[in-house]
């Protein structure tokens, strides 16, 4: 138990160093390395693999959207372009959630059998 507490504390300190470095606007690499190291360790300690997979989709789909531009003709009005982009990414979000939820459902059904 004590070992687990120490591991929690170590990951927390690592993330905290990352947060404080970001707050003080120190080197971005120190920030990211310290935070990500602590973050990955903390995720292992949280032990929520099953749920993390489902709900991470909500984080990762919109973040990925920021890096990929869908080619939409520029002559279309802004509101239409916004609607098309939204439609596309929400569709991706839905499909990936159905995929993960469907996968989870079938695993549960198998385990019941």
């Amino acid at each position, binding site marked *: 138990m004590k070992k687990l*507490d120490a591991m*929690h*504390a170590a*990951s*927390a*300190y690592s*993330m*905290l160093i*990352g*947060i*404080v470095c*970001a*707050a003080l606007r120190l080197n*971005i690499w120190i*920030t990211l390395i310290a*935070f990500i190291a602590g*973050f990955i360790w*903390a*995720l292992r300690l*949280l032990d*929520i693999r099953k*749920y*993390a997979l489902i*709900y991470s*989709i*909500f*984080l990762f*789909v*919109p*973040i990925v*959207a*920021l890096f990929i*531009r*869908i080619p*939409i003709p520029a002559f279309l*009005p*802004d*509101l*239409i*372009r*916004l609607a098309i*982009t*939204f*439609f596309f*990414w*929400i569709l991706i*979000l*839905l499909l990936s*959630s*159905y995929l993960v*939820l469907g996968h989870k459902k079938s695993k549960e059904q198998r385990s019941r059998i």
Partner: protein
Amino acid sequence: MTKSSFLSNYWSEILLYTIAVACLVTTAAQYPLSTTFPIGGDAATHIRTVQHIFTDPIFSLQKIANSWYPVAYILFSINAIIPHANWPIIFSWWMTLGQVLTGLALGLFVYRLSGPKASAIAIALWAMTPITMTSFFEDGTMAQLWSLPWVILFFERMLAKSYKGMALFAFLALFSHPITALVLIATLAVSAMIFDKRVALLALAITAIASIVIYFRQDILQISSHEASKYVPELLHGFYLPWVLAALYGWFCIIKSHKHHALLLTTLGSFFAVSLMLGANDLLGIGFWTNRLDAYIVIFVVITGATGVAEILKNIQSPILTTCIASLLCTGLTMSAFHDNQNIYKRYESPSTYSRIHPQELESLAWMNNNLPSNITLFTSGETRNYEWIPVLTHFRWALEKADGRTLLQQSSGAQNPVVVFFTRKDNTPDDVSSNQAQYTLLYKNPSVQIYKINSL
């Protein structure tokens, strides 16, 4: 938990709450205390809609009912109870109250979601947002600011599984501001589609109907602006980055502690997806109203960031150390935001920047009230939004017209005692007005304003 550790936790939480609320009130009250007049073009419109609610209730209620922000206006109209109300001052303090209420609503939701420490941190995180992360004070967008507490309380009621409360706060949010309504509807639609594929088909049908409506009401499509968000860079690699990092961890902590509340997690997740893509739509290649759409992603980061920081501090397992770190982080960053805002407010106050109505324009309005008969009609162009203060600060009839000499004479021909006003910092007096003394008599002049009486043809 031993008695001493319980007490130490208790006092550390009280201390954190005190610091957080102090930070919230400080940055919110800084706005009315540092400015002598509201900034932003919308303030005059909001005041004009509600200021005669008791003297001309039917006309005011009609205006409120036909507006986009009925709930926000009804709440704002309560201020008409104040005798001899100074509306510009009241407006600034009402904005402050909206900012504080949003912070407290966040505190309440995060308290229920992640406990008292996270709640105090959430209040402090929201305290850092005015000007630096949101544009409510700068733009005078009172209705949007006053719609945020209802969205947050909607999620709080969802967590408490109170469906009546959810319905109430959804109603308040939907009729407070159309952007908030859009975000809430989109969030609920995405969440519902994930829960049930039949709802997804229904959503497709609604999209088809919306497309038909847009086809027939093409004026909606004229709304456009190409702006890069001022605030999203602050989230991704600036002032708010620490809390975005903490938000990642916070999200997983929320998943762990509420893993059986699928509705809440799906709705919060959908809220994140919708608000990030709306707030950062310039990064998606569009740039549509980004500065008005960022507040929702800030709210998500506050909720999850506060949870993340509180969990990280809990794992350090020293109440005194955690309180010290949290207090120093919150006060340090709030003071930094306070200092930055101080410079911005000073800039707005400077008459040379012309960011708000100029003191000489206010002087001219006071002169009009004291020296012009009450039955005159004031004509102005729409060159500057400062003209919108005329019906708020004077009791004259105001007509917005294209103000070149020839058209003015035609437009004012039926009006009683027509007078034309030029705020010359933005709207120069046309030559055919200033040089035509037979038809335009100069009544008042200062370096920023010229007022002419229009003589009948």
